[in-house]
């Protein structure tokens, strides 16, 4: 480190001396008369662009001279964290991408697996966090645009999208703005493309307040033989740019936004956020798929982060060829753009194709029919050099960059950051939770919540929605303006009146968990996401078998455009509980996979592969990198245990604001295969009189739970344990029962525990339940513990014995809980002789609260 810095700061002569000594095995430059920068200036610019002194020296060594301005920009982008994965590469080698059905693993625009009968799916998940934190609508919209391009680049027609979102809590106006804007942005882009958004997840936690997460997943369907790769080949072939013109938008997106922490200046980075044009993208999809099908493309790649630079250099590098581009031939939407601006612009909706000269006229013709721009901007060469020229310059000075293509794309620096176990882990994992139980025993639980409810009512919110916000404190005549910025009470009341309401509520539900249960149902992390997916077209394509709101989405494998239909399906889900990962990154990452698989098994799908989107803080901080390392190891180990390959993914670092990192959030997108869509199982109870069975076992595990967060405002304890083999057996048993059509419903038991899982099945089916819990654990844990490997199923009375036989044959624990019944959610506790009611609420109350909570929170004025 210090060597490099000293050498450069000593001036150009020393640098060239060093460079002169290095024998590099790289192709010779095409042209020598290139305008290079003065050594001091070059170093200054390099540092400003985010390169380290060492990396700058590496640039000089690679070039064997000082770089030009354009070259420096290109290196800074290609070697940015976002493009080069320089901090994560070593860790990512833990993942296995192998599997008989894997047609394309990581390294391409998206991974591809075979799903049988000659069909294949391409899928990937990618982050667009920093742009969205600055400008939520465009940030989220272009996130969708980018991931969709990654999919059709592979030759697949995009048929489904999902989104994994994280925000701060909704009592903050800024968070409501971000959430509302991101959802609208995703909808506006995806809906226009005619690609159904079929699922996803959202969590609201303080840790994401300064740095929301927008992870977009997309999946495309193709015939196996249609798989296309972005490998440039054939010297003499044309390099063709298709789609939008190039402007100054998004310059430095990858290096400025994605590879740095947020600070006060973040707002000024708004110009680095790109603006999306979904109509152009829709045309691009049709043009590219048509030309791919006609065999007119040798290679196809999309322009994402670092724009033309990364797309062209990666294409050349993969094919072991050179590429020669004239920036003046790039259609520009702004005047006087510099070569480096054209090369690094992140203008959206652009594709780069390699086309044989004899096919160019056909490509042009198709593009013109769709009204899409298509320009030859260069050609493939056999020099191995990445050459950029500007034909507007004098003939002898046209070359503005001349770099070894392979070095650029593949030889980025690789770091092994330091790690240290964060101090908070021991403290929080061993946090004494006795008071949680005592609070129940001493019967002060209801009083705690009742006060919040009383406050909420005065604010004009539904009582239990307001119960989420403990900050709404009454100070006599007005609410403290600390959390509910701008919120006004709907009536003036005295402190005595608040106390009276509190007392009445408290007495009303004394000695039961009704108030706690309803507060949980209204929790933004649990309540219905209908407000979100109602804004997404989730049916276009006529293949959506299971719509959002279920454990996993299911799409028929079929191409409506070709009238090719099958009875098989694809199931998909995104999962990650960041709070678990914060409290135990290894276990949390494993649970993310286990839950994703469980969601698939509930609908009857066999998990086949995952994509991941690893969102973490600044990797240069040892504590952050420790969490990253642990999460990767946990996920990789669990994937290997279940033989599930990781076929694509994305790492997003520097998710910090003002020095505070987000929760480690290794989100996964998991895809499975349904053998017969007619056998798909959903989570809703179907009719009265069905038997309700808990598969798996509830343990006394309240650590990291939604319960202690909602009721006690605490994030602490150890996440629930995970037995990889038990998880596997429970899921195998459920899949067999589903495929035999023995189940009426199956629902994953996760956040909020058993009480919430039962309530969700009741609400979805609009039918009540009468349930008796008999586990010898405290009531509060029996209701709300988030023990893993549990699934709540229902079956007809006639099928009950056969279902129990299957469960017994897999040797998994289970208990018959009760039956679907009436219009109340009734849960009681049995200690062998006596029965004690724990929860008794009307289905109507639960349903309204569950369905309306999120919308109410978003609409707080």
């Amino acid at each position, binding site marked *: 480190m210090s060597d490099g810095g000293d050498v450069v700061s000593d001036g150009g002569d020393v640098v060239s001396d060093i460079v002169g000594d290095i024998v590099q095995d790289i192709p010779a430059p095409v042209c020598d008369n290139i305008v290079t920068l003065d050594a001091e200036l070059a170093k200054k610019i390099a540092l400003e662009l985010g390169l380290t002194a060492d990396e700058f020296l590496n640039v000089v060594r690679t070039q064997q001279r000082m770089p030009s301005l354009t070259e420096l920009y290109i290196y800074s982008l290609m070697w940015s964290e976002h493009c080069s994965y320089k901090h994560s590469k070593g860790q990512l080698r833990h993942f296995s991408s192998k599997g008989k059905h894997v047609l394309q693993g990581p390294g391409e625009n998206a991974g591809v697996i075979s799903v049988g009968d000659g069909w294949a799916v391409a899928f990937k998940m990618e982050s667009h966090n920093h742009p969205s934190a600055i400008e939520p609508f465009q940030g989220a919209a272009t996130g969708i645009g980018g991931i969709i391009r990654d999919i059709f680049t592979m030759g697949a027609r995009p048929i489904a999208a999902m989104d994994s979102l994280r925000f701060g809590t909704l009592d903050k106006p800024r968070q409501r703005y971000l959430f509302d804007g991101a959802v609208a942005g995703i909808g506006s882009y995806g809906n226009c493309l005619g690609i159904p958004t079929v699922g996803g997840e959202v969590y609201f936690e303080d840790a994401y307040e300064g740095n929301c997460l927008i992870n977009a997943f997309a999946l495309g369907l193709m015939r196996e033989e249609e798989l296309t790769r972005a490998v440039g080949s054939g010297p003499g072939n044309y390099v063709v740019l298709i789609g939008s013109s190039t402007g100054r938008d998004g310059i430095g997106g990858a290096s400025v936004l994605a590879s740095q922490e947020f600070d006060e200046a973040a707002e000024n980075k708004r110009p680095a956020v790109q603006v999306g044009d979904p*109509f152009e993208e*829709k045309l691009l999809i049709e043009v590219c798929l048509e030309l791919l099908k006609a065999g007119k493309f040798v290679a196809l790649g999309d322009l994402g982060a670092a724009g033309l630079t990364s797309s062209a250099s990666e294409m050349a590098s993969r094919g072991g060829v050179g590429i020669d581009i004239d920036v003046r031939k790039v259609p520009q939407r702004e005047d006087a753009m510099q070569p480096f601006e054209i090369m690094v612009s992140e203008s959206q909706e652009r594709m780069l194709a390699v086309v044989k000269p004899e096919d160019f006229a056909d490509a042009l013709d198709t593009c013109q029919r769709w009204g899409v721009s298509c320009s030859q901007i260069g050609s493939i060469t056999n020099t191995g050099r990445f050459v950029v020229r500007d034909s507007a310059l004098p003939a002898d000075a046209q070359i503005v960059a001349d770099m070894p293509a392979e070095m650029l794309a593949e030889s980025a620096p690789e770091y092994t950051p330091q790690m240290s176990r964060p101090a908070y882990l021991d403290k929080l994992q061993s946090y004494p939770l006795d008071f949680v139980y005592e609070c129940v025993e001493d019967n002060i639980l209801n009083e705690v919540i009742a006060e919040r409810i009383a406050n909420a009512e005065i604010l004009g919110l539904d009582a239990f929605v307001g119960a989420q916000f403990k900050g709404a404190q009454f100070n006599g005549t007005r609410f403290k303006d600390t959390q509910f910025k701008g919120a006004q009470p709907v009536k003036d009341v005295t402190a005595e009146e608040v106390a009276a309401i509190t007392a009445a509520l408290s007495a009303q539900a004394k000695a039961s968990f009704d108030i706690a249960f309803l507060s949980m149902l209204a929790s933004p992390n649990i309540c219905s996401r209908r407000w979100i997916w*109602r804004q997404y077209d989730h049916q276009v394509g006529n293949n959506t078998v299971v719509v959002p709101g279920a454990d996993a989405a299911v799409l028929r494998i079929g191409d409506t455009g070709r009238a090719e*239909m099958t009875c098989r399906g694809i199931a998909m889900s995104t999962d990650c509980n960041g709070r678990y990962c914060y409290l135990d990154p290894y276990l949390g990452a494993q649970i993310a996979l286990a839950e994703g698989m469980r969601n698939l098994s509930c609908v009857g799908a066999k998990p086949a592969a995952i994509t991941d989107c690893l969102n973490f803080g600044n990797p240069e901080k040892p504590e952050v990198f420790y969490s990253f390392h642990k999460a990767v190891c946990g996920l990789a180990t669990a994937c290997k245990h279940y033989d599930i390959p990781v076929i694509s993914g994305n790492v997003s670092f520097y998710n910090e604001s003002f020095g505070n990192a987000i929760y480690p959030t290794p989100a996964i997108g998991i895809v499975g295969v349904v053998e017969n869509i007619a056998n798909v199982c959903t989570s809703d109870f179907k009719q009265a009189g069905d038997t309700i069975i808990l598969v798996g076992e509830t343990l006394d595990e309240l650590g990291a739970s939604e319960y202690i967060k909602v009721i006690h405002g605490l994030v602490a304890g150890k996440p629930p344990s995970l037995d990889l083999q038990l998880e596997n057996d429970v899921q195998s048993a459920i899949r067999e029962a589903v495929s035999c059509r023995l189940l009426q419903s199956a629902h994953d038991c996760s956040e909020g525990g058993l009480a919430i899982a039962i309530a969700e099945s009741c609400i979805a089916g609009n039918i009540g339940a009468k349930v008796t819990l008999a586990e010898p654990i405290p009531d509060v844990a029996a209701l709300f513990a988030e023990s893993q490997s549990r699934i709540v199923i229902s079956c007809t009375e006639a099928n009950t014995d056969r279902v129990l036989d299957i469960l017994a044959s897999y040797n998994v624990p289970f208990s018959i809980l009760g039956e679907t019944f009436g219009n109340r959610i009734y849960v009681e506790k049995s200690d062998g002789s006596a029965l004690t009611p724990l929860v008794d609420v009307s289905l109507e109350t639960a349903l309204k609260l569950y369905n309306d909570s999120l919308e109410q929170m978003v609409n707080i004025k």
Partner: protein
Amino acid sequence: MSADTNAVSLKFGVVVFPGSNCEQDVVHALHLLGHEANYVWHQDTELACYDAIVLPGGFSYGDYLRCGAVARFSPVMESVIAYANAGRPVIGICNGFQILTEAKLLAGALLQNRNLKFICEPASLIVEKSVCKWLDPKLAGSVLEVPINHNEGNYFCDAKTLAELKENGQIVLRYRQAANGSLDNIAGICNRGGNVFGLMPHPERVCDFATGSTDGRAFFSYIFRYILEIASNTKNNLNKNGSLNSDDLNSDDNNIIGNVEVAQ
């Protein structure tokens, strides 16, 4: 062909504008019902060979400027207008409905939803007693479950137009519960002749058992009667009421009866 559909195979033309995205779904639904369907590129103008024309949903021209405002000027629209004015059947679904209002083939306009949000959800539709040729009159008063999926589905027209729509039996569908702020809960209307029908809900999404219910089949399975009727009128040159003009039907190109195959 499914047993529960009509016994006549029709040839539908499904217009594709840049940005249309439900054309494949419509074709899929029509195929399920045993019909033939071809895509008609927005620059094509030859429609005479089709028994009926569908303007599908989507975001033609990105819905930039105003939904349907640009598509209305596509070359195909002149032909669609002539086709409609000749009394031949045209259905516009969602964006297709918006285009039909922009082209003045249907009255009124579709404003942004009252809640200013895109809405994708199931909707219960009450079939009104109307002059619409696309739905079986026997369905009047019944309720069909058909999803909506739009940002601008809030139907509006002035009081005089509304009175005319009511008086002439042009209101075809109403939402059972207020959905998007539509005037009088209007979900679909037709022209005075009943041959041009625009609706915001997506019947093509509920034609396939594999993905849900089949209430949408009613929207594509009755029109053959009207087509047979106008074919027969044309053949017998029964052009008394002026709504059918054999010149506008491009009868020099194809005898339209030739497209209607009566299944055995």
